[in-house]
């Protein structure tokens, strides 16, 4: 496996750099277009939730990428934060019409739907949150 890892400042404006990092990795390893769209979306949703909800955390969030012939692996690590499992928020009622729909939860719904594995871990000792993703590559 061939991995890459980088820290990004904890702010929404980091997204441009994150997308550049993701797309360079995807281009180097010749990922298909749907996978590229998917990993951009997944990382944006998870990263922006960390920025919004993990107030008081470290100055940076670490993004790690890896892959093999069949799948891509992503991880986001946030240190010095309170536990909050964003991956387990309530399901969005996507069948509902506009009157019944409410904002919120849509990003996590997209992530859960588009990936093959999504895991949340929290280590109390160093207040470390890790969210990991596995996505099977398209053929």
């Amino acid at each position, binding site marked *: 496996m061939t991995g890459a890892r980088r820290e990004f400042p904890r702010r929404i404006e980091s*997204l441009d750099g994150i997308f550049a990092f993701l797309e360079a990795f995807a281009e180097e390893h010749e990922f298909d277009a749907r996978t590229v769209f998917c990993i951009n979306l997944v990382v944006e*949703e998870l990263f922006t939730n960390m920025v919004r909800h993990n107030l008081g955390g470290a100055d940076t969030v670490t993004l790690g990428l890896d892959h093999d012939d069949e799948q891509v692996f992503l991880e986001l690590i946030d240190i010095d934060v309170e536990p909050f499992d964003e991956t387990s928020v309530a399901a*969005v009622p996507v*069948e509902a019409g*506009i009157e019944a*729909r409410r*904002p919120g939860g849509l990003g996590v719904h*997209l992530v859960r739907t588009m990936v093959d594995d999504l895991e949340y871990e929290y280590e109390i000792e160093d207040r470390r949150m890790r969210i990991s993703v596995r996505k099977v590559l398209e053929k």
Partner: protein
Amino acid sequence: MFEIKHSPDGAVLLHGRFDASQIETAKAVFEGITGSCTMDFQNLSYISSAGLGLLFATQKRLVDNGEAITLVNLNPHIREIFSIAGFDNIFAIK
């Protein structure tokens, strides 16, 4: 890069990547939409839940007043996102 333009026939043209860092730019334009319109996604390459949320809020405001946004020319990836989000029930998509 993300841009919003208007065509001569009044359609709203979205260009580039509509991610969470572009919400304030889009909000300023979307809040000025007061009647039914077409949004053309021909040159929109990407959208996340941040953009979907703003589109939803704008559509909700319009529908409450008997108006609506119609979406056209979604690329296959964006079309899939709209389907997963259940936005087929929220927007007319052509």
